[in-house]
């Protein structure tokens, strides 16, 4: 027993010591990206290889973690122990909180010398700015688009809806139900639960509303635009909706819905599926007076514990350069973030114009330190009003939301 133990111990020790030693003079950078989809991974692996060829003295260790628990757990543990990654790919939600905690380094100096500083779209740049300083540069925007089945709308002779009334009419016309009244094919599907119910945001913004006041305070209580959006959905959804969570497959992608709001990236598999060729259309979401959508943004940040920010920025520069950006748009089908490439991007794919529109009119998560609390409260609001088993009036729900968010904002 002991002998076996000793042998095993020796073996393992030997194995761990076989970790390749760093050659003299190379800089090693760690890069942690949020999201674990294949297309993006392929792109980043290409980018890192190409970059390392041009810069043989820099080595990049790539790692990724799925959105939500894996990324949060990993990133926060790393930062809490002083081992934060050098390069971080993360979203808008993280900006305010992490800047406050000092996780991200401000990159104003490096940004000022960047060749693309005037080329980056202003709205996109704003996402990575907090309290006047630049922290993150966007490599991808994730707009939510209004997706519809071209073939089904044509068959029913319905034009692509652009207003709420048109949406309601179209959805009701395209919904199919069985003898018990349960929806078997959804005209318009909207998630009941999920990690981040931004679908509600699309309707709120489309109604000209906002969650925050001018001075970044939450304004749920008595908010007429939010109430209006909720009322519209509350009236429509029971007639046309199928239950799903936006963490899982959208019924539209599974071929069970005619229209939906969906993350642009989530449509990729469906578009590549020969069965749905020519049947998937995208547009700006139908609205009630204000053109709007939700548009998330993933940015590259330099971590607090990075000892070589110049090297890190070199990689950022490469990854956001025009060649890389175009290659990315091609591989991942995600809109570009540089103004100069917008035209070229639109020619690459017939639906890119719609995607770009969603980016242009899209708003992201609020950049406040209590953004995760906001996410929870907004999710609860959507669920309790639209799917709750207890019938609650919209004003009461908004009041409750206000109370909840204020509690969460407390120190």
């Amino acid at each position, binding site marked *: 027993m002991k002998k076996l133990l000793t042998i095993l111990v020796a073996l393992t020790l030997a194995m*761990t010591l076989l970790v390749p030693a760093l050659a003299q003079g190379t800089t090693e950078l760690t890069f942690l990206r949020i999201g674990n989809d294949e297309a993006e991974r392929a792109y980043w692996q290409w980018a890192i290889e190409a970059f390392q060829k041009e810069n043989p003295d820099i080595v990049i260790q790539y790692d990724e973690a799925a959105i939500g628990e894996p990324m949060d757990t990993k990133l926060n543990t*790393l930062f809490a122990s002083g*081992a934060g990654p050098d390069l971080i790919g993360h979203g808008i939600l993280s900006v305010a909180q992490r800047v406050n905690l000092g996780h991200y380094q401000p990159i104003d100096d490096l940004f000022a010398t960047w060749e693309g500083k005037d080329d980056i779209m202003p709205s996109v740049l704003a996402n990575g700015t907090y309290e006047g300083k630049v922290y993150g540069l966007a490599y991808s925007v994730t707009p939510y688009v209004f997706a519809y089945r071209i073939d089904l709308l044509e068959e029913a002779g319905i034009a692509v809806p652009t207003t709420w009334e048109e949406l309601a009419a179209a959805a009701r016309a395209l919904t199919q139900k069985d003898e018990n009244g349960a929806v078997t094919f959804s005209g318009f599907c909207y998630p009941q639960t999920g990690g981040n119910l931004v679908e509600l945001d699309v309707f709120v913004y489309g109604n000209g509303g906002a969650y925050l006041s001018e001075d970044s305070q939450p304004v749920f209580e008595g908010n007429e635009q939010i109430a209006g959006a909720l009322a519209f959905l509350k009236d429509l959804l029971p007639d046309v909706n199928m239950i799903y969570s936006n963490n899982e497959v959208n019924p539209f992608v599974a071929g069970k819905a005619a229209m939906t709001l969906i993350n642009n990236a989530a449509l990729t598999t469906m578009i590549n599926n020969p069965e749905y060729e020519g049947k998937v259309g995208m547009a700006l979401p139908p609205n009630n007076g204000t053109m709007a959508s939700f548009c998330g943004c993933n940015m590259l940040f330099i971590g607090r514990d990075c000892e070589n920010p110049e090297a890190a920025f070199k990689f950022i520069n490469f990854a956001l350069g025009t060649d890389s950006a175009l290659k990315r748009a091609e591989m991942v089908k995600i809109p570009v973030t540089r103004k100069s490439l917008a035209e070229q991007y639109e020619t690459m794919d017939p639906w890119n114009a719609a995607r770009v529109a969603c980016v242009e009119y899209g708003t992201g998560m609020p950049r406040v330190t209590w953004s995760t609390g906001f996410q929870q409260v907004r999710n609860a609001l959507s669920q309790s009003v639209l799917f709750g088993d207890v019938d609650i009036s919209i004003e009461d729900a908004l009041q409750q939301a206000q109370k909840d968010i204020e509690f969460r904002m407390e120190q």
Partner: protein
Amino acid sequence: MYNDRKQSAIRPDDRAFRWVQRVFMLLMALLMAGPLVMMITVSLQTMPEIYAAEFTLLPKDPQWGNYTAAMNNGNWPLYFKNSAIVSAITLVASLFINAMAGYVFARIQFRFRQALFMVVLIGMMIPPQVTLIPVFTMLRSFTLFGGRTGLVNTYWGLVLPYIAGSFGVFLCRQYYLTFPVELDDAARMDGCSRFQAFRHIYLPLSGPVFASLAVLKFAGTWNEYTWPLVVTSGERLKTVQLALTAFRNEGEIFWNQLMAATLVVEIPIYIVFLFAQKHFVKGLLMGSVKA
């Protein structure tokens, strides 16, 4: 094993009771087997078939290709190797250490024994989320072995936190408590130290409880997800549970490949359980019965 074929089967009460048992067992068996069958079925279906409205018990056209596709998604031989190494080392190291501790609590009287054992038991009640950050920070600071990042992203980083197991100590203690005290007395008369008594008497007789502990520890480490997620980066040390997340991302879950991969990942554990079943029963027997 208690065999009741001895008594006559004439009693009608017993006959009826037997039938109740059979029905009960049938229901339980269906309940247990159902998900497993569905898992296998789904792993052999195409995605449209999975989304279809009808219920199909067996796949229409078994897609064995799902398994190859799943195994081609990533460097699975590496992941299996990593999981195997980590699980094996953990179990070997923890077995001896925990057994020894169990023996101490069972057989040696010393001050604070009761209190210390209570503390050890409390250790079983702590959720991993609580220990993540302090343990990670500590491992990182062991720069002697790993350079700048200490033991992070090393095999030892994956193994060390799992070696001390309160459950293992608890089980071994109960097991050793069933040994006759005369053994220790005899050993002492022969001039053996406590350690020698442990090594020469208790250890050789620990087969059953070791089998149980080994199986539980191996399975536990093989099935761990959170800690490997935090302490490893990239491909080099990826374990099988981490690799399973590849089939699930934003907006799409590839159920068929996920089920296929899950089966492949768990089959080694099923095999281990199967082989150890015999010893399992004997080992847990001693561990849980007597005080």
